[in-house]
């Protein structure tokens, strides 16, 4: 069941200006770059497409076309146009196509690629290396997820988005394989949690010293863990994020904070008010991915949350 929650809309949290600014920055052939270049970025295009779809659902066929055109025949997507390698953005693209209810078959091809893709430690040789020889970073190599690009290990953010994409797309038709990858990915996230809660890129303890969590990784990991049993680890991470949210002055981190806390039914109005002040009309935010995420955060409660998972 998709949850629409009514919240009191504060008129000062106007996302119209930022959305106009984002649309003004759309590349001539569709899609968005990070900031000013003509090179379409898949991450930016996915987040911007969510923002446009949230305002104009009817624009789906037009606005997802650059994404569909960018898909490789093997089902994956690159990081940017011109790059010939598959990347983690495949998970984000599937989420967008879930939102657009795309029926072109692109999602199925993307999911098939995603289910076949592992972090490098999924290979027995590297798993044993990490178990026996390379113990500088504390983690359980049996719990693996998804890499940023082929040939690298599993990391928190690609794994979290992959879990969300698979959970969303297979909500009504989960297979043994999709269930297994979701559980393995969830186990990997829980294994990589920082002491005291929250996540960073995926190294929680190095040489016996605990490293600090990051806001964005924590928010995205929590989005992936929605619907999972509220273990003490998840509660501690949620508590860490709430506490950290009180003094974030960065648009990107604050936006992800709002998107995540909202799903966990935590109050976000005061955070949205602060975000609206930071964003203004959006003109000063050069990073289009950040601008798009901010628009989604400002619209929280007035749209179908792009990363909400059916239960």
């Amino acid at each position, binding site marked *: 069941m998709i949850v629409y929650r009514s919240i009191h809309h504060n008129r000062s949290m106007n996302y119209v200006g930022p959305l106009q600014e984002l649309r003004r920055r759309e590349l001539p052939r569709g899609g968005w770059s990070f900031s000013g270049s003509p090179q379409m970025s898949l991450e930016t295009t996915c987040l911007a497409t969510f923002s446009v779809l949230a305002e104009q659902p009817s624009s789906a066929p037009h606005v997802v076309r650059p994404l569909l055109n960018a898909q490789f025949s093997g089902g994956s997507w690159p990081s940017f146009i011109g*790059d010939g390698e598959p990347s983690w953005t495949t998970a984000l693209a599937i989420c967008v196509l879930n939102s657009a209810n795309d029926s072109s078959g692109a999602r199925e091809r993307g999911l098939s690629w995603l289910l076949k893709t592992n972090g490098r430690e999924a290979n027995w040789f590297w798993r044993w290396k990490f178990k026996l020889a390379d113990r500088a970073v504390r983690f359980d190599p049996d719990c693996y997820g998804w890499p940023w690009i082929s040939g690298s290990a599993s990391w928190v953010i690609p794994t979290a988005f992959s879990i969300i994409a698979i959970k969303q797309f297979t909500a009504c038709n989960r297979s043994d394989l999709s269930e297994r990858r979701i559980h393995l990915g969830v186990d990997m996230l829980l294994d990589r949690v920082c002491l005291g809660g929250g996540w960073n890129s995926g190294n929680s303890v190095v040489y016996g010293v605990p490293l600090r969590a*990051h806001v964005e990784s924590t928010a995205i990991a929590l989005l992936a863990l929605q619907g999972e049993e509220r273990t003490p680890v998840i509660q501690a991470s949620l508590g860490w994020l709430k506490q950290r949210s009180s003094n974030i*002055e960065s648009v*990107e*981190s604050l936006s992800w904070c709002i998107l995540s806390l909202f799903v966990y039914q935590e109050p976000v109005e005061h955070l949205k008010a602060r975000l609206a002040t930071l964003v203004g009309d959006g003109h000063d935010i050069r*990073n289009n991915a950040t601008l798009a995420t901010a628009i989604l955060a400002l619209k929280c409660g007035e749209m179908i949350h792009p990363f909400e998972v059916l239960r």
Partner: protein
Amino acid sequence: MNVDRRCFIGSAAGMAATTGAAARCLWPKHSVSYRRPRSLVAILNAAEYSEKTEALLMDGLQLFRFNVLGKMVLLKPNLVEDLPGPVNTNANIIGAAARCFLRLGAARVAIGEGPGHQRDTELVIQAAGLKPHLAGRQIEFVDLNRDELARVKLKANYSGLGELWLPRTVLDSDFVVSMPKVKTHHWAGVTLSMKNMFGVVPGMKYGWPKNLLHWHGIHESILDICATVPIHFVIADGITAMEGNGPLQGAARELGRIVLADDPVAADATCARLMGFDPDRIQHLSEGGRFLGNLLADRITMLAERIEGPIRPFAVIPEFHYLLARTVP
């Protein structure tokens, strides 16, 4: 002479292995050499970060003969995390360097960095205190993790990567200044001007952290990147340095020095000596000394203060005890 089949196959395999090993040793691993007969290094004494830093830096820069008139200058500081302590290159030094290069006639100064762990670059800039140095001046910050990219064939082949996607801002710069924080590093031993260049490798392609470089060897990747993106000048922030479990969790170490150099190997070798390390034991420095710059002290002209070793060498994690120089210079 009768040669049976087993003997023939064994001999052929042996010859192939020998030829392969010889080719590996003899085949040049780099297609460029930036090493000059002599390199210039200036160690500036600076007890603290203050408003006087800019004047000190300007005096130091004027000891060197370089021309940035009309050029696009890229300052590449080490901005890693929004953490307290001496994790990042101090913003006062970055801002002072930017203003100095503008005063020296640079057409444009960009500060570029692509943090390796923290995806929210804005958070790092805020924590580093860099914003006031950007406001209202012709100094722009470029997030190298998200810049336009171009595919570049690497000019050395230690890592086996062959090519990398690199940011346009880096490739279009006329004068690249590496501005490291002097720190120990739990994977590489030290992080100085050469290791600092990991930050030009874009996260949008390679992720956070830039894991592919680790898989291909940290020292090897450093050599390939520095061969491909030559460092023209170094300003190393060693006023408050980091020792122990760097680059994030180490302890502050008051070194009280800024190191300037027209050669990254000479700069890093000098910093290593100041830290009480033998630069020849740092893999990327000893190999870099063959083609990226001068490692040996007798090929480095000191323009300002002499190297005086620290009263006690920098602390390192046990894995790097071998870096400690037998006699402190």
